[in-house]
């Protein structure tokens, strides 16, 4: 994880705070990533381990468990969806605010989501299609028909055996056969077998309930005569016996004959199996469509949390990937803005460590070069100023010296001309000394400009305050401020701004000796997402030659007689100190327009907008422009 810091001692506290907060953020990001991955793995494990259990219990075999499962199944996706939506909205907002790396993160994230959907979508479709086709095949209507047919077949067989038994006992031959059976069981049994093979045993009881005769399967043999009343069924472990009894007359006796049919228990076991299969099939048939719908819902119940976790993991991964690049971009921007103290911290194992080291080295080299350049420029500037000062001081020294020499000479000659020469010579000396004093004061003002203390200053009030002074000083120049909005405020030092506009108004009035209109026009502009107020001060004077436009803001450059050449230099210095810009446009004959861009301030409430008449803030504070 990359980090960034300032390389010098200036702002060490804020740097330390920045490093600490970024380190904490990086730590939190890593922790969040690990937690999410663990959650992801845990969820996968739970799904694999307990999917069958969940499917079985979800129908409510254990109400508490199913409620808990449902709460988890509903709450977890909702929570994850909320977190994911919040993160996505935050990312989209970051992109709208053009935060470095946000756009790339968003694109990467969309790509990850697309990959996840493309990989999960077909699997889901395949799974659901497979289940549907399996249900259609394994539980098709033909299977159901086959099961029902098998059941009906068994029922038919069973009924046939019951009917056979009943028809034998109720048949016309039964009385004579049974009577004969009482007398000679063995011989008659063969006849019964020939007549009805479904009869497994035949037993005859006397009036006292004792057995008279028996033939057939011994498992069907009864110890005593049973109660009469239709076909009776006896289930044993190895056989199921159906019995039908009838009272017949055998000679003089009335006997009870019992015919039995023996059925295998396998028949009934198979019937039970078929019935159970039909139960499952009938339930499936009844809930088939609902089951398909629930299955889709069930799939989403499990897959949605995983999908959301995938997005969250992607978010964190993209942050880890993009963060160093975003830091580089941020650092590049700050260096471009002139902050050469910015450094990016990196971990030794980071893939971008070499790039970051190169970047930091480049910035350090740039800073060194810039310092050398600044030092050279400063020396050059001081040399130039020293030359100009020497020149400016030397100029009045000549007339002072000449006046003094002339006075001394006339005084030595003791002539009457001394009286005539004294006044003009001394006047000349005083004038030149005054000029020297004025020049040195301006120089002092230029050198001692204080650090601006910006505050929200209503521009209209400020301009009217400065304009009021100049309306009194010049009767021929009309100052027009109607195009200045009432509500617009700039972030500026009020006194320094008054000095700026005093200098510009002075220049404009001096450029119109015959009179005219000084117009101030204000617009708002936006530069690099920041709001600026553009003030245009336009005069109707003689204009500035194009060759001089680039030099008018240089110190000691002036085209006016008696000018110090520091007025516009002071203007530029103040405007630059406010983070603004100033320039001039002129066609050389029809007036000049000075443009000033100043950062706007949020409108202040009326009570918080100070607009008092400043005793020290008149145009004289800045002095007349040179």
């Amino acid at each position, binding site marked *: 994880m990359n980090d960034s810091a300032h390389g010098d001692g200036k702002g060490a506290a804020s740097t330390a705070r920045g490093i600490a907060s970024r380190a904490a953020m990086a730590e939190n990001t890593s922790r969040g990533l690990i937690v999410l991955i663990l959650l992801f793995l845990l969820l996968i494990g739970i799904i694999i381990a307990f999917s069958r259990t969940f499917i079985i219990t979800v129908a409510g075999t254990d*109400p508490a468990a199913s409620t808990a499962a449902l709460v988890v199944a509903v709450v977890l996706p909702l929570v994850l969806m909320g977190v994911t939506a919040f993160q996505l909205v935050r990312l989209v907002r970051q992109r709208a605010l053009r935060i470095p790396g946000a756009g790339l993160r968003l694109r990467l994230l969309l790509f990850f989501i697309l990959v996840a959907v493309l990989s999960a979508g077909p699997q889901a479709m395949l799974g659901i299609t497979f289940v549907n086709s399996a249900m259609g095949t394994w539980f098709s209507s033909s299977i159901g028909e086959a099961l029902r047919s098998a059941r009906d077949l068994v029922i038919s067989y069973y009924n046939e055996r019951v009917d056979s038994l009943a028809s034998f006992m109720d048949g016309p031959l039964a009385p004579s056969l049974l009577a004969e059976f009482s007398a000679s069981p063995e011989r008659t049994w063969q006849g019964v077998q020939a007549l009805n093979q479904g009869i497994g045993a035949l037993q005859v009881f006397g009036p006292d309930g004792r057995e008279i005769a028996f033939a057939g399967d011994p498992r069907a043999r009864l110890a005593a005569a049973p109660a009469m009343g239709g076909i009776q069924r006896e289930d044993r472990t190895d056989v199921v016996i159906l019995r039908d009894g009838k009272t017949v007359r055998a000679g003089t006796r009335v006997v009870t004959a019992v015919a039995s049919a023996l059925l295998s228990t396998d028949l009934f076991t198979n*019937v039970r199996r078929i019935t159970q299969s039909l*139960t499952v099939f009938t339930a499936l048939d009844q*809930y088939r469509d609902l089951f398909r719908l629930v299955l889709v819902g069930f799939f989403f119940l499990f897959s949605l949390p995983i999908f959301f976790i995938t997005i969250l993991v992607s978010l964190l991964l993209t942050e880890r990937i993009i963060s160093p690049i975003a830091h580089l971009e941020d650092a590049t921007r700050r260096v471009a803005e002139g902050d050469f103290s910015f450094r990016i911290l990196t971990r030794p194992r980071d893939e971008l460590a070499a790039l970051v080291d190169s970047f930091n080295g480049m910035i350090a080299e740039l800073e060194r070069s810039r310092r050398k350049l600044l030092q050279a420029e400063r020396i050059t500037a001081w040399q130039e100023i020293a030359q100009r000062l020497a020149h400016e001081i030397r100029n009045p020294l000549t007339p002072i010296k000449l006046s003094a020499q002339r006075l001394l000479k006339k005084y030595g000659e003791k002539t009457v001309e001394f009286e005539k020469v004294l006044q003009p010579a001394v006047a000349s000396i005083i004038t030149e000394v005054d000029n020297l004093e004025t020049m040195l004061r301006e120089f002092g003002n230029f050198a001692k400009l204080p650090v601006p203390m910006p505050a929200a200053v209503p521009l209209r009030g400020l301009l009217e305050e400065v304009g009021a002074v100049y309306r009194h000083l010049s009767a021929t120049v009309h100052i027009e401020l109607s195009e200045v909005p009432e509500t617009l405020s700039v972030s500026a030092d009020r006194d320094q701004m008054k000095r700026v506009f005093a200098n510009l108004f002075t220049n404009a009035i001096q450029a119109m000796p015959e009179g005219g209109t000084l117009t101030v026009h204000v617009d708002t502009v936006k530069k690099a997402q920041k709001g600026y107020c553009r003030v245009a001060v336009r005069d109707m004077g003689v204009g500035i030659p194009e060759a001089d436009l680039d030099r008018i803001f240089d110190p000691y450059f002036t085209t006016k007689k008696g000018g110090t050449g520091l007025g516009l230099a002071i203007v530029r210095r103040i405007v630059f100190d406010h983070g603004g810009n100033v320039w001039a446009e002129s066609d050389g004959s029809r007036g000049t327009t000075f443009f000033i861009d100043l950062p706007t301030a949020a409108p202040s409430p009326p009570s918080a907008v100070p607009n008092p008449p400043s005793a020290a803030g008149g145009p004289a504070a800045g002095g007349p422009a040179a």
Partner: protein
Amino acid sequence: MASAAAPAARAQAIELSMAPRGPGLTALTSFLGFRWARTEEVADSLRRGLESRITFTTRLYEHRRPAFAFAGDRLIAERTVVRSAFWDFLEQVFVLEEEGSQQKTYTDPSELIRGFFSLEETFTFSSPEAAHRALYVAARARFEPVRLMPPLTLVGLAGAAATVTTPWVKRDAP
């Protein structure tokens, strides 16, 4: 599932009554009756080949003395009876099957419902003194109108064939 079970929960309940304990008796008998509003539907679904199941859980507790109430009442015995009802296509009768007991068959649906939804449970004691302690019985029933096999049980999520579980009902032994 919970939303679908809610209306059913209003229509179902379990009733619990106790036989009086005479002097010297060493058994305590409780009678459970599950009340279900849609009994006709049960018989119809059985005839269609579906299966229903009911599980009765009966617990015998002894009240603790107030000083030990924090430990909860003592569980003396617990019985669980699982009954299944289905239609026997062969004999054309309703069959009631209970784990560990003989099958019972019914031709009349109302008799089946009566037998299916009622239970007589007897707890026996080793000594008459034991039967005279401060006892009570708690009972609960869980009814599956249609018994489903996994994974078809998932339709329970949509409220279909939802299992109904009654709250615990308590009665002090008389």
